[in-house]
């Protein structure tokens, strides 16, 4: 039977990796993902996990090793953050089209400059288009569950794509909280062994990653994109079976008190829990406010998001990332595109908050809702605004 324990979220993620019985972990240390890889290397060193740990010289090498080991048919895991994820970036675009089901947990952190080790979503958003499946956890339980779900979905032969589970650095990675850990027997029921359709084998040689000349490159990119879009079916099935076995059901878009809401906050990751508190407080005061949380970011669940937000007059979309010179934050841009010229679409207002560890408080979320109410009547001058920044 699963047990409810008080555990640091990073350790819970490492336990999920142990239960998934991975074969290869190649990683380079960086704050704040450190405890995940530290604990995994301890599990391997003490014989609790039978895997090869490759202590590489950089994140570029880490992802290169992961591509190689996954191509050879090994269940492969890594973890990174911030500048480390950026150093990986050149290689991150490769396992998608090569259909290598690497699983990575990203403990989100701001990007330099100025140097900053604290949480926001600039690192993962800078890697938005790498062609991996991407989910966002809001708490330790989801970090554990989604890591197991990632192996299950990524390695499914209908998917065969790499997958990232995103957890907020420090705010989740370094917090001790209750998590229900599954047993090995339970995980074995959920996660079958990795049996790739193709793998690098000297006895049966094949080529992976040849040059894509103009005559085939477009088709290769389209094929990858089609595979990523089609993965949603398996992602949903993976959550359904997880719920059937363990009782916790996840959805691409999670809602809270959204049924009759005029205004919906739209969030990703751990501030969604603070948003639940904010929604409760505003509901107590008679405001018709709810929450739509994007759990599945890539492939973007368009129909599910439209359904979840149907009937809302306006969305207060929170971004944890400020893309300089853009029309709005990445989530704001995504949703404006999704709803463009859709009849009855909610109005979309975009707020940027929580950069580089700046605390996102209930009062900030309430400010966004108040502004959204005012903006429904009178359009704001700008397409987005930063909340919680000190005045000049």
């Amino acid at each position, binding site marked *: 039977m699963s047990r409810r324990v*008080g555990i640091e979220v990073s350790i819970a993620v490492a336990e999920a990796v142990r239960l998934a019985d991975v074969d290869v972990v190649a990683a380079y240390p960086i704050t704040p993902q450190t405890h995940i890889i530290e604990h995994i290397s301890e599990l391997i060193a003490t014989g609790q996990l039978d895997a090869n740990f490759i202590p590489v010289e950089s994140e570029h090498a880490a992802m290169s090793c992961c591509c190689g080991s996954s191509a050879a048919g090994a269940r492969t895991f890594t973890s990174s953050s911030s500048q480390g994820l950026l150093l990986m970036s050149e290689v991150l675009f490769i396992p998608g089209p090569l259909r290598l089901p690497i699983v990575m947990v990203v403990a989100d952190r701001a990007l330099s400059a100025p140097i900053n080790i604290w949480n926001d979503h600039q690192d993962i958003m800078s890697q938005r288009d790498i062609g991996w499946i991407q989910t966002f956890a809001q708490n330790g339980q989801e970090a554990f569950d989604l890591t197991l779900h990632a192996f299950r979905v990524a390695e499914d032969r209908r998917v065969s794509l790499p997958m990232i589970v995103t957890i907020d650095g420090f705010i989740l990675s*370094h917090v*001790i*909280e209750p998590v229900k850990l599954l047993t090995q027997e339970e995980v074995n029921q959920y996660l079958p062994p990795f049996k790739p359709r193709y793998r690098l084998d000297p006895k049966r040689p094949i080529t992976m990653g040849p040059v894509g000349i103009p005559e085939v490159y477009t088709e290769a990119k389209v094929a990858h994109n089609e595979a990523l879009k089609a993965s949603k079916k398996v992602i949903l099935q993976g959550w359904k079976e997880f719920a059937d076995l363990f009782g916790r059901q996840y959805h691409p878009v999670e809602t809270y008190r959204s049924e009759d809401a005029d205004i919906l906050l739209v969030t990703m990751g751990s501030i969604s829990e603070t948003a639940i508190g904010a929604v409760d407080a505003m509901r107590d005061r008679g405001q018709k406010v709810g929450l739509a949380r994007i759990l599945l970011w890539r492939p973007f669940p368009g129909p599910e998001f439209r359904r979840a937000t149907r009937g809302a007059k306006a969305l207060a979309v929170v971004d944890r990332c400020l893309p300089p010179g853009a029309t709005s934050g990445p989530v704001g841009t995504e949703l404006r595109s999704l709803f463009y010229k859709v009849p009855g679409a909610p109005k979309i207002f975009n707020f940027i908050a929580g950069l580089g560890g700046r605390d996102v408080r209930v009062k900030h979320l309430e400010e966004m809702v108040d502004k959204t109410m005012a903006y429904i009547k009178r359009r704001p001058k700008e397409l987005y605004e930063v909340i919680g920044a000190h005045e000049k």
Partner: protein
Amino acid sequence: MREIRIHGRGGQGAVTLSGLVAIAGIDEGKYAQAFPSFGPERRGAPVMAFVRMSDSPIETRERIYHPDIVMVLDSSLLALLDVSRGLRKDGIVILNTRKGISQLRETFGLDSRLAIVDANTIAREVLGLPITNTTMLGALLKATGIVGIEAIEDALDRRFGRLSEKNKAAMHRGIEETVVA
């Protein structure tokens, strides 16, 4: 929900203390969060750690601004920081100190409820080291009853292994010798 802020210096076990309290509470079926003041860790520098404890699920990831309980593991911090900053009206400050209650109120203007214990002396006598976190755990239990002794002892067993007996002894001395005023 009750919220704790722990002040200490890097190496004194403030973060370990926060984790022990949260784990013991979770083992009792409560909901809890324990987290450090996020950032680089430096031995000897002032550090903070935090705990939230509740009977119902905790729906916030805000930092803690208005604690119900403040713990001070190192009395030299009293001269550096306002340890009762943001403390709730009915809150309590739990101090490791050799000073008496009236002297503390006079010197540092502490006007909340106080609990005091000479944790340095206890820790030196019982552990042979001035690491006061488990003695202060005793003070926390005496002053607030936020978790049960049994759950904390279990958590200490799992955390410290063969060192747990000494740490449990330090905690019990903390319970016995803490004065609440």
